[in-house]
């Protein structure tokens, strides 16, 4: 037997599933109420979790003597300067810190992980006797990069290579679509199972 609170929760959950799905039919008051409720819920959840982060990452260490933690706290507060036009420019300081750190991390990780290593793996697969499949991958890599060349018109050899590359890219896009749609179907099945469980519980199952 399912408890009253649990049953109430499941009823609420079922209503929200239907309100969300109903937008496919057309915009309606149930969807709007559901959307507004989710917005409030999501902002509350996000704020609560971030307050924990501030407490654990900065506030507690600060109280324990890590004076440096004042800096990120002040930088975070400077973000609110955007709300007053005369001092809005101050919000650029924390943004710049974040962009600088992000760009540094991105550059360091991207050069090897997404450029050099990718070329190296393509070569290694051929070297290690990957056979025809390794060759097809190598052709796909070279031709699809050609597709992204902007300074040469896609005619002649470049055009032919880009055209082949486009086929590889399309197959990849198709495979990506496929991965997603089956995943979303799983989500749909999951929600239908939830509704089925609710109905079963409602009937005393």
């Amino acid at each position, binding site marked *: 037997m399912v408890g009253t609170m649990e049953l109430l929760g499941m009823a609420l959950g079922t209503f929200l599933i239907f309100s969300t799905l109903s937008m*496919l039919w057309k915009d309606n008051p149930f969807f709007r109420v559901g959307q507004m409720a989710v917005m409030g819920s999501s902002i509350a*959840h996000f704020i609560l979790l971030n307050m924990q982060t501030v407490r654990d990452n900065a506030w507690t260490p600060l109280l324990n003597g890590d004076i440096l933690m004042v800096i990120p706290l002040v930088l975070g507060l400077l973000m609110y300067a955007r709300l007053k036009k005369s001092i809005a420019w101050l919000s650029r300081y924390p943004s710049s810190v974040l962009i600088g750190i992000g760009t540094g*991390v991105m550059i360091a*990780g991207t050069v090897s*992980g997404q450029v050099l290593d990718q070329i190296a793996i393509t070569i290694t697969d051929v070297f290690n006797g990957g056979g025809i499949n390794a060759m097809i991958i190598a052709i796909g890599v070279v031709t699809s990069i050609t597709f992204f060349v902007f300074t040469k018109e896609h005619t002649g050899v470049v055009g032919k290579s880009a055209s082949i590359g486009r086929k590889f890219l399309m197959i990849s896009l198709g495979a990506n679509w496929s991965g997603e749609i089956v*995943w979303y179907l*799983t989500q749909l099945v999951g929600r239908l*199972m939830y509704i*089925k469980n609710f109905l079963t519980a409602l009937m005393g199952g």
Partner: protein
Amino acid sequence: MSILRKLGKIDYRWLYITSLILTAIPLFVPIGLSVTLSEPVKDYYAAIQALPEDSVIAVSFGGSAALLDEQEAQFLATWKTIFSLGHKVIFYSTTEDGPMILRDHLGKKVIPEDYGYTYGVDYVELGFSPLGEPGQASFAANIRGVYQADSRGTPLDDLPMMIGFNNFENIDLLIYEYTSCTDIEWAIRQWTVPYQTKVIATTLGCCGPMAAPYYPSQIAGFLSGSGAGTELEVLSGNPGPGAAMSDSKSIGILPQLIFIAFGNIAYFANKFSKEDEQ
């Protein structure tokens, strides 16, 4: 001919409603279709099986409440496999939802203590930290730089398993559970490349094609989607939620395939009729 052409202009809502109905039917009338195992799943399982006794596994847990339907089969089957082999496990959550899901699942659906585990000695749960890629790097280099205590507030040095345990050197396998497709690169850049840590991954179905370029050279195996979770359930002999979903997926996809066929029939009917007119 005009009927064929109309097949390309059916109101989308027919597709929606037929898909919804057909997906629901097997939930009430199960069919029981079998599954076929794929190479990345076999290698994922083999990577856990190949670990020597008393190995330490780090689970970077990226559970998301909204995505449980896709993830649950994967992680439940994975945990059961690990616990049955007796390896030590360190869980750390990279998503806000992670600790809540761990609390709900790691005590109710798979109970480590049932396998003879003791908290703090055989497994620990470090809680959530918004790690991102820089955080993964910090964790691999210095766990205490990210976590000073576990999710229950116990200082790491008070947990027997964590004494002298502080970085990648203590970890034999990383199970990288993520939901954002490009995040696989974080594990590769911050674990595989610098430390040659053995990594296996679990992710959503849509992320399979994105993980594939890194398999098997940089990740030893991976599970993408609940389908792969179902395969692991079969492979490891741990039936779970994945199996129950298989039938519905099989039937629910049919309207989509039929509508794609309709679209193509209509296109070619239109094309040929125009050619005839010329």
